[in-house]
């Protein structure tokens, strides 16, 4: 599977190729320690067509690099390998279980005169380690969410079961990786929270508690509205990946047809568009259907300690519930209990949503765009990104600016102190990165003739208006 999407760049004849996935494999050196048994190490290899010896070579190379770098930094071996044509990312997901992702660098193809083969220029510096490193980790988390850990599968059914599971999962999952549109948000893996007043929030709390009390099968509940999280009974790390799944995979799949206004920023849900009855997004499509299958995807949470296996029920108007065990009776009970109450709550929230919109004022293009992220609660806010869809996450700014954001983020990651970085981009944009305690803010300003002081003032103003209720050092 090759994903090359040519894009028109500056020159008419030049062809630009975005980063793409070259290969992806998972191995465990302990499974084939002796010579001649190397193949046993390989648990999964994509693309599958690759010849066996090459697979073994590639795996061996990765192993060697990691081993080699370990001598310099025993606890922190190499995370990536840069080459002219591609970049490799290593991730030890579980002890001795290594995941490797090889990404081809973006390149520009310049045609030559006289029928000579075109010259290819690799843009080695365009790829940011932290972004793709995070993508790789996400792959593991997503696998773990639906399959549990590697070691559990191995304990349960040996290498055979594990490879089966890996193949089943990654065969489909890798097709949904859109490496060309990965950016800073993948590093954060944040959650967008729905702003809500205290009273409505408490009503939702009360609703969730009642549902969990009357339906004892419901173990945890998460409540979302408009792709934004309001309440999570799950722990933060589990919620983070589940949120990713819901907002980038499940929800878009169910709402793709009704998606018309893609280009307006940040999910403009039409107020009147609310469903006045609930339906299941996982499990039975229609409860009335006598042949309806009551099968829900299984998910694994709290893998660190209690290791719970649950069923995932997603019930819309705007809500989702997690449960242990299910049948028709349960679904009907849930439907009748949750449906009407939720419709009521939804109208409350909708009202709040409209108030929020009114406060934010008429939708005129602001002078600035920003990304905010808080490491403590994973709260994320972006006015740069358009609606997330199953296929791509669209940004409204030039990739070069996104690259600058990524670089600033890397700088921040290096030190623990609060800092601020102001960059003047080539294209008259100013880019400002601020880090205060566990929060990061990235602002892109479009002010052609502004000087450094003015930009600084502008960002201060932004902080005062947008973030006045949090402690943000200026």
């Amino acid at each position, binding site marked *: 599977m090759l994903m090359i999407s040519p894009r028109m760049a500056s020159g008419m004849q030049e062809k630009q190729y975005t980063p793409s996935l070259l290969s992806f494999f998972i191995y465990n050196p302990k499974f084939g320690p002796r010579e001649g048994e190397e193949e046993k190490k390989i648990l999964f290899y994509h693309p599958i067509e690759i010849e066996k010896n090459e697979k073994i070579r590639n795996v061996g190379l990765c192993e060697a690099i990691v081993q080699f770098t370990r001598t310099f930094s025993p606890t922190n071996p190499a995370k990536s390998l840069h080459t002219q044509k591609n970049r490799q990312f290593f991730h030890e997901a579980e002890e001795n279980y290594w995941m490797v992702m090889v990404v081809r660098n973006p390149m520009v193809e310049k045609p030559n005169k006289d029928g000579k083969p075109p010259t290819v220029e690799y843009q080695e510096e365009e790829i940011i380690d932290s972004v793709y490193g995070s993508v790789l980790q996400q792959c593991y988390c997503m696998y773990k969410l639906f399959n549990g850990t590697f070691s559990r599968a191995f304990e349960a059914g040996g290498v055979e079961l594990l490879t089966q599971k890996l193949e089943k999962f990654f065969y489909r999952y890798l097709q949904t990786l859109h490496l060309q549109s990965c950016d800073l948000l993948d590093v954060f893996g944040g959650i967008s929270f729905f702003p809500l007043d*205290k009273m409505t929030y*408490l009503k939702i709390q009360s609703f969730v508690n009642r549902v*969990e009390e009357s339906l004892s099968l419901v173990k945890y509940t998460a409540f979302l509205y408009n792709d934004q999280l309001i309440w*999570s009974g799950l722990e933060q790390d589990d919620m983070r990946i589940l949120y990713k799944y819901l907002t980038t995979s499940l929800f878009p799949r169910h709402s793709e047809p009704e998606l018309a206004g893609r280009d307006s920023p940040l999910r403009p849900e039409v107020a009147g568009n609310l469903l006045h009855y609930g339906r299941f997004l996982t499990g039975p499509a229609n409860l009335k259907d006598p042949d309806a299958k009551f099968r829900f995807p299984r998910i694994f949470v709290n893998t660190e300690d209690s290791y719970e296996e649950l069923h995932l029920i997603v019930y819309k108007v705007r809500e989702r519930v997690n449960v242990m065990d299910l049948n028709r009776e349960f679904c009907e009970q849930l439907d009748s209990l949750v449906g009407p109450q939720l419709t009521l709550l939804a109208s409350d929230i909708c009202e709040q949503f409209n108030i929020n919109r009114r406060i934010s004022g008429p939708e005129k293009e602001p002078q600035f765009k920003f990304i905010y992220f808080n490491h403590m609660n994973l709260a994320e806010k972006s006015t740069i990104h358009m609606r997330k869809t199953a296929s791509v996450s669209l940004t409204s700014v030039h990739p070069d600016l996104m690259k600058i954001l990524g670089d600033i983020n890397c700088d921040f990651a290096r030190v623990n102190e609060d800092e601020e970085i102001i960059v003047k981009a080539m294209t008259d944009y100013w880019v400002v990165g601020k880090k205060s305690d566990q929060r990061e803010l990235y602002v892109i300003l479009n002010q052609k003739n502004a000087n450094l002081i003015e930009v600084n003032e502008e960002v201060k103003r932004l902080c005062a208006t947008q973030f006045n209720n949090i402690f943000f050092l200026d």
Partner: protein
Amino acid sequence: MSDEYYLELSENPVQFENASSVNNVFFDEANKQVFAVRSGGATGVVVKGPDDKSSVAFRMDDKGEVKCIKFSLGNKILAVQRTTKSVDFMNFIPDYPHLEFSHECKTKNANILGFCWTNWNEIVFVTDQGIEFYQVLPDKRTLKLLKSQSINVNWYMYCPETAVLLLSTTVQGNVLQPFAFKSATVSKMSKFEIELPAVPKPAKLSLSERDIAVATIYDQLYVMYLKHHSRSTNSPGAEVVLYHLPREGTCRKTHVLKLNTTGKFALNVVDNLVVVHHQSSQTSLIYDIKLRELDGALNVHQPVLPARSINPYKIHLTGPAAAPSQAPVPCELYSSSWSVFQPDIIISASEGYLWYLQVKLQPTLNLLQDKGKLMDFLLRRRDCKMVILSVCSQMLTGGDKGNLSVVATVFDKLNQVYKEYLDAEQAYTAAMESGPSRSSTSYKRPVRTQAVIDQSDMYTHVLSDFTEKKGVKHKFIIAVLMEYIRSLNQFQIPVQHYLYELVIKTLVQHNLFYMLHQFLQYHVLSDSKPLACLLLSLESTYPPAHQLSLDMLKRLSTANDEIVEVLLSKQQVLGALRFIRSVGAHDNVSARKFLDAARQTNDTMLFYTIFRFFEQRNMRLRGNPGFNQGEHCEEHVAYFKQVFGENALMKQATA
């Protein structure tokens, strides 16, 4: 079983000499006094009031059989009726002549049915031909007619609480004419007709005074009519029909209490509840007219609780016949010798006892399953507080784990009452502050009834025990606490800090930090300095608490000093300085505090920066970079010189 009886007779009854051939017993509803008249008064009259102090004993001449005997208010004047034509009076005011004087009714050929005192010196004679309202002049030993009214009267009934007199008129007796008395005036209220179950032919007196009672319920005057079961109408049993008698306006039939049985009944009103005693089954029923069952102009009520007998009562025999060790004997309840008076009095003349009827609330817990209805019922009772709190405890920790929606309903009902009180209190305070100049209406301080269950009651008696309880799922505990906070918020009642503390404690105990984080994120736990400090203390177990705390302090905007302290304690000296500068308070902070903190970091460059900052500040404020004596920075100046040399000190600008 014993906790099933929800009605009881008062512990300390008024005892008097039981009625006999030589001893006549009278009861005055106005003063609640029992008169024991021996031999027409010649061998003594003993008057026992509701408390021991108000008992009076005296002698009077036997001038014939006493028909009615009553003191005026405050035991000032005694009135005795012995004939149908006149009433005799005796002064009980000290220094006034004790001699009896008599007054004949003014209307010729009229028979006095009885009389009522409406004041200490005002009295109404009720005759079969009307009423005569007099002022008694004790010093002159005469009566002065204030007002009279002609009307045919079958019988009368007087409600002393409201000073309303009810006269039964017309042949059938079912047209009732009320009069209201107030300091020397009498006003005629609009008359009304009691609907009889069947109209007799030929017409005859059909409404008996035995079937009518007058009482105030929820501060409103009601005429209660015991409508007996009649075969002609299809009603399955007798009913009590309540007619609301407003001060002004017309009297309307407003409530019907279904008795669902037939027989002999008696009525009491206790704690705004209508109690119906049924003699043949020896049980009583209670009705709350505010418990709504159906909509509509006329409310039809079923008994609140299943029928139960009055709690069995034992009499301690006294007197010479009783040995001291003798066991108390059970008292016969619902005896035919009982007389029932409004609002809550039961008298057994043959045994010489006067009891007050009382409602016990504790048994209602188990008798009324619907917790919402139970709360409605309890909130209107006088001594309800502890019972309500025990309902809450039982609901949360009892065997039958109340489901959350019931908990929510109960909390909402409690907080509704709580909020009403808070509002009234606030309105009162506001009115007081605005001064008497503005408000001509005098505000009364709102009375805090027992039904006002505030957060501290809830915390002390219910929630703190509940959260400590073993075997209760923490999920349920948190759900309950959140439900209470939700309810308080819904009624816009500010939540007290200790409730937040309880929530946090519970969450921390169960390691539910992420939940806590989300609550704080949505400001469910309102900002306050104590809460911010509590969060700071959690930092070691949950690092994000630090950020949450700082955010909270920032939002409070009155906690800048605290923020500086927190940052300095984290050795974020520069951050602290930048913060204090951003809020414009850097001219007033203590330089020493910052320099101390900077020294502790062992970062000489940081120390240099901070030192230079304050030198510049001094320069700006005083034109001299040096520190003042009072700032106690000598030690730091010395250190600075030692590290960076004397020349590094900022020079004073020379002109």
